[in-house]
């Protein structure tokens, strides 16, 4: 079977965009979950894990039901579905990576006068980069894989 070129390009574009959005939002969320105390932290963490456990076609089906009713099924709604599917994976992996860092590195950086952003960008992110990069690759692959299911379900949506 020959896959039309436009479909491959669409899949890569959607997967790349949704992974990019997931990385920015997911790593920020993971850092917040790993470093901050706030009401609803456990619920948010639980939600991220639950979304990870949900079978991909079911997630896509529900998403497309919701998104498809509000907006017409466009590339952006596919990206939204991709973000929801990639985000839990990224949040989970990044949170574990950031939590496993020795807190002394962050403390040392802050006592040396570094701002929260600088500590994150210069110290925490480089130290946790490998597991986060692995999670990004996995998330990209997951979105790409689920896109087929999403498009297939979209064709037969209620």
């Amino acid at each position, binding site marked *: 079977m020959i896959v039309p070129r436009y479909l491959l390009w669409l899949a890569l574009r959607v997967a790349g965009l949704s992974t990019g959005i997931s990385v920015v939002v997911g790593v920020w969320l993971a850092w917040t979950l790993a470093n901050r105390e706030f009401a609803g932290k456990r619920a948010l963490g639980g939600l991220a894990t639950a979304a990870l456990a949900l079978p991909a076609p079911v997630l896509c089906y529900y998403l497309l039901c919701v998104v498809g009713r509000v907006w017409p099924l466009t590339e952006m709604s596919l990206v939204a579905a991709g973000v929801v599917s990639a985000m839990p994976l990224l949040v989970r992996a990044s949170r574990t990576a950031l939590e496993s860092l*020795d807190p*002394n*590195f962050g*403390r*040392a*950086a*802050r*006592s*040396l*006068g*570094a*701002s929260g952003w600088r500590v994150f960008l*210069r*110290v925490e992110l*480089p*130290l946790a980069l490998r597991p986060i990069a692995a999670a990004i690759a996995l998330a990209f692959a997951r979105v790409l894989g689920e896109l087929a299911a999403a498009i297939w379900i979209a064709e037969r949506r209620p």
Partner: protein
Amino acid sequence: MTHARMVKQIPPRFSLDVEIPLAAGVTALYGPAGAGKTLILEILAGFVRPDSGRILLDDVILFDAQSRVSVAPRRRNCGYIAQHDALFPHMTLRQNLVFPARRFPRLERHRRVGEMIERFQLADCAALRPHEAGPAQRLRCAVARALIAVPKLLLIDQRAFDAPLLEQVRTAFAGPILLVTGDLDLCCAAADEMIVLEAGRIVQRGAPRAVLDRPVSVEIARLLGIPNLFRGTIAALDPARDSSRLDFGEFALTGPYIPGHFRGDSVWVAVHSEDLRAHSSGLESQPNCVSVQLVGVSHRARFVRLEFSGGIFADVSREEFAREKDNKEWQVEFPPSALRVL
């Protein structure tokens, strides 16, 4: 003025309640594990928020529970050297030094980094990453990194610190230094003041030599590692001759006059093991000599510790022990000036 008063409850049982006026120079925090030494440093650095208290550094309020002021760690100007040096592993030692110097203009930054590299002998290893450098180089780099940020207070939670390095730090930094240590030799050699902590409370403070010579209670004497602690009663007191007679059941000793006590009082007496003289028997006429049996020998780095019957410990030099080790009968001499009544 630099002054800290802090109270912190850590459930279920630990509570910290201390007041530390920090003068320029080295203040050593000494105490057993779990006494709250590291917690004090973490509170001063701003990593842990106390329940109540007030922290002033150079007349600037860093923390005040009443007015709910708590300055962020990065604005406190406290150099913090953690138990593990916490050098950033993905940077070279030079990059570690550049990290806190970012706020200086480029030329000034290079000058400061170069100066620290030279001062702490890091030129050979500046291009290495921390895991490639030796422990001593890493420690020197951690110190240089803390100093490059121009702190107003230096907090050192490093057990590997030695007297020469501390002297180097003192030449580079004139402000107050708070040092956590379990090394009494280091306290005596380099600290200006010593604070003895136990279970979150300051139990004694003062010049290190004075604290070691005059522990105020038997608990502190135990904390300071004084092995000879005897409970006895005062059998006689003679202020005119500045002498007293102390009865310990198995033996009796003559000591200096003990002011503030009466005959018959029960007292604890501490004697440093290095102040005792152990030798073969045959000096019956010597005052304060006690005949004892040798029950154990423990070889230390610079001396040999002998354990005698009656819970008496004496330190002798290795040469002295080599000469006398075949003794069958021993005598331990207690110089009257070595007896410390607690």
